[in-house]
């Protein structure tokens, strides 16, 4: 509600008006109607229902009084009541389930209203309004009030009426007077009190319940309209607040002695009680309704009495109490003191501040404030000079005892603060050592991890699974090659290669099981491949090598020159820095490697990507192969390398020109501009030029 109010003021005038178009302001509470139209509609509704309902309720209320009382005491009285009504009028609507309807409305809406609303907006338009916490609390309280349902209905409509009156007055453009407003509210209280005590609808309620209803009325209206009624803009409350606050600040030098009050400031227990009283006093501002503010005052005063009781040894009289209260007010310097006092004075039920404990304490608070405002030298028993001196801020301590006491007090405070500081320091040092420790641990952790990774890498070097080619394919290829013989030209080579590899692929898909068993063969193949690729200009058709093997390596072979280049490049890098990172990285990429390779060997795929994999394949393959290869294979390798050098010229002539060279050239060209999706180190291609010319690298043997 409170939250809704402020934004509501910024809504266009038209939206605020009554939906009936009567020109008055509407209200969400009234279902968008103004109070008059709303009441009219309700009355109509009620009359329609009255015939059947009144008869019944009356019977219940009068004839079975005992039963009614019993029912009343139950919390669910309303629910049962409604259930009853629903039973009575089954044609009207289905029994309203409290759970679903209650939270939507602001108050426990009388069944009549709910029915109206329900019939008006059947099912599709549930009220979007969710009641605030206070509202739901009020709803609950209203439900718990032990007055008849009729009375609750009346109570609610009265609340809405006063609500509306207040708002109407506040929205009125004419000059406003807070006294008029106060009178308006007070009249409403009187009216409602009369109603509660004389109206037939409240007849069966006990006096206490009536009082509770009256209290509830006031509390709801005041809470809902707190922001309108608290320190209204057309009053000078705020200026007064500031004035009083300033005044109290000026009077900070006043001690218990000046006020002739018996609070022992030095006593720790007394201090605590003073602080309790102060916090209650300050808390007054945090409550909305006058009752709560008064309750807060009462609590504050009780603390003071407790304090005085200990100081004087008996129940304190007003002679002791008022000075103590003044002292507490001075020390508390509560915010918006005047506004709060005025708010209570104006808008609470007048009897509340005139009588009762709350009234008494509130009167005391008012007089304390009056005293503070009018305080002068005389009222403190000081001479005018002394008073002026105090007010101007000159510390004048009349007796050495006083000054000694003050010094003691300050020393005490200092020592307490020192203790506090010490504690804080301790905590701080604990935190900083913790931070250091943590930092150390982090470094240690990093080191350990590095170590571990190193160790693991050492222990279990990455093994690369070579291309797995089913043996029958190999034999097939061998056979194929044997047919064609060495006569295959460069152009033929490519086409052969493709068809073959495609074959490979298809077959491979079907017979993957074979792959595993043929690991060894694969190894040898791979070894040969790498050896070929690492040299770069190697001819696959080298006489020394079994030709079919070379053919299988063909997809790789396509990129061999490039691979060689990148290899060189990598070696140069690795020579410079043998960081774990790069090694690790290399290793990681290599993990996928055999997949990539086999895929590409199958697909004969795009240069860019395969090249990437390949360029790391070779060195690692070699490295890994070193331990895994059999003796005969290593010898094979040796022979190939030898043969490479020998057959340098024919290779470049026959094999390399078409696929490789342009590839590299293209690649370099694109690297700067167009290649969008290169995932790996493409940056170093400038080094390619140099490296290409280098002799075959002793690739990563150091790894």
């Amino acid at each position, binding site marked *: 509600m409170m939250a809704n109010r402020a934004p509501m003021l910024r809504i266009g005038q038209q939206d605020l008006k009554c939906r009936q178009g009567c020109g008055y302001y509407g209200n969400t509470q009234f279902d968008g109607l103004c109070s008059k139209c709303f009441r009219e509609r309700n009355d109509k509704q009620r009359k329609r229902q009255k015939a059947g309902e009144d008869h019944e309720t009356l019977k219940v209320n009068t004839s079975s009084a005992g039963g009614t009382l019993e029912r009343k005491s139950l919390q669910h009285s309303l629910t049962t009541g409604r259930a009853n009504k629903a039973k009575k009028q089954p044609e009207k609507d289905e029994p309203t389930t409290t759970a679903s309807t209650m939270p939507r409305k602001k108050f426990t809406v009388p069944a009549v209203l709910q029915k109206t609303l329900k019939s008006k907006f059947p099912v599709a338009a549930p009220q979007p309004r969710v009641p605030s916490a206070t509202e739901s609390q009020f709803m609950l309280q209203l439900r718990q009030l032990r007055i008849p349902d009729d009375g609750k209905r009346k109570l609610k409509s009265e609340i809405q009426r006063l609500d509306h009156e207040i708002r109407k007055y506040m929205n009125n453009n004419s000059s406003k007077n807070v006294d008029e407003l106060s009178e308006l509210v007070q009249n409403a209280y009187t009216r409602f009190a009369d109603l509660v005590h004389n109206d037939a609808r409240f007849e069966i309620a006990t006096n206490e319940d009536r009082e509770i209803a009256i209290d509830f009325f006031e509390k709801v209206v005041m809470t809902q309209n707190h922001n309108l009624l608290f320190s209204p803009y057309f009053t000078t409350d705020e200026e007064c607040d500031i004035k009083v606050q300033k005044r109290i600040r000026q009077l900070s030098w006043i001690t218990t002695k000046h006020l002739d009050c018996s609070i022992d400031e030095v006593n720790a227990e007394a201090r605590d009680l003073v602080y309790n009283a102060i916090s209650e006093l300050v808390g007054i501002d945090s409550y909305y309704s006058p009752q709560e503010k008064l309750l807060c005052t009462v609590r504050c005063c009780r603390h003071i009495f407790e304090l005085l009781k200990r100081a004087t040894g008996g129940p*304190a009289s*007003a002679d002791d109490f008022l000075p103590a209260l003044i002292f507490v007010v001075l020390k508390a310097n509560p915010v918006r003191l005047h506004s709060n006092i005025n708010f209570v004075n104006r808008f609470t039920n007048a009897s509340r501040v005139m009588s009762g404990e709350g009234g008494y304490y509130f009167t005391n608070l008012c007089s304390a404030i*009056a005293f503070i405002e009018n305080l002068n030298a005389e009222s403190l028993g000081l001479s005018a000079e002394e008073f002026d001196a105090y007010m101007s801020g000159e510390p004048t301590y009349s007796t050495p005892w006083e000054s000694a006491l003050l010094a003691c007090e300050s020393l005490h405070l200092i020592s307490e603060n020192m203790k506090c500081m010490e504690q804080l320091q301790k905590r701080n040092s604990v935190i900083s050592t913790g931070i250091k420790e943590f930092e150390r641990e982090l470094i240690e952790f990093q080191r350990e991890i590095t170590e571990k990774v190193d160790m693991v890498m050492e222990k279990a070097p990455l093994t690369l699974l070579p291309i797995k080619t089913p043996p029958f394919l190999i034999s097939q290829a061998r056979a194929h090659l044997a047919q064609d013989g060495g006569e295959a030209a460069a152009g033929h080579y490519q086409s052969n290669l493709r068809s073959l590899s495609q074959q490979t692929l298809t077959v491979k898909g079907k017979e993957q099981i074979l792959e595993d068993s043929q690991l060894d063969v694969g190894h040898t193949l791979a070894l040969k491949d790498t050896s070929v690729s690492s040299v770069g200009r190697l001819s696959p058709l080298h006489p020394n090598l079994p030709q079919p093997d070379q053919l299988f390596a063909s997809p790789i072979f396509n990129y061999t020159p490039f691979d060689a280049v990148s290899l060189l490049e990598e070696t140069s890098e690795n020579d410079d820095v043998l960081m774990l990172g790069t090694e690790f990285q290399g290793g990681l990429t290599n993990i996928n490697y055999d997949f990539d390779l086999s895929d590409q060997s199958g697909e004969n795929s795009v240069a860019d990507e395969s090249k990437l994999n390949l360029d790391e394949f070779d060195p690692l393959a070699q490295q890994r192969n070193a331990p895994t290869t059999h003796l005969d294979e290593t010898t094979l390798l040796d022979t190939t390398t030898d043969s490479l050098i020998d057959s340098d010229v024919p290779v470049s002539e026959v094999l390399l020109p078409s696929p490789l060279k342009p590839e590299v050239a293209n690649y370099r060209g694109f690297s700067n501009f167009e290649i969008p999706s290169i995932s790996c180190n493409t940056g170093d291609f400038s080094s390619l030029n140099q490296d290409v010319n280098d002799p075959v690298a002793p690739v990563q043997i150091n790894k």
Partner: protein
Amino acid sequence: MATTPRSGGSSSGAAQRPNGTSQNKSCQFKLVLLGESAVGKSSLVLRFVKGQFHEYQESTIGAAFLTQTICIEDTVVKFEIWDTAGQERYHSLAPMYYRGAQAAIVVYDIQNQDSFQRAKTWVKELHKQASPNIVIALAGNKADLSNIRVVEFDEAKQYAEENGLLFMETSAKTGMNVNDIFLAIAKKLPKNDNNPGTVIKPNGNESTQTTNNCCK
């Protein structure tokens, strides 16, 4: 008078609701205590409310605000007693307290002439500023020390008569006249439904309805 000053011997607040006898009326009155400090205002009240002098019960937190209910004939009278600070410096605040009070007891110390003078100024002020129907009682306290009295009984009595005040010399210590002075006030107070000074007095207003409704 067939009255029991301490309604059934119960302490304050016990007999606030007249459950029962249908002829009972219930009234609530605000009574303010005025007088210089240390004349024994709160002692007087404590004696009236708690029946104590000096031996305080633990439950008594303060003596500044107390209530006591007494029965007079067919009426239950609840006194709400507001103590005021007696120091001179707080004198100007008194009107806040006696605003809306139906009764006032102005207390002085019979050993202290100043306090009697102050009492006189209180009376004057009450006549001037308090509600016109206020019942004022003058109480010369510490009557147990009458051997060292300064203010003569007759002098005070005469003053009281001139100003239309109830007058008694009381002693909170011995309990002399304490209940009597309150009873006298209670008797003098108008006990019809429209008590002056109170804005809303539901208990008083509803006495007839109470009997109808709550006793079933």
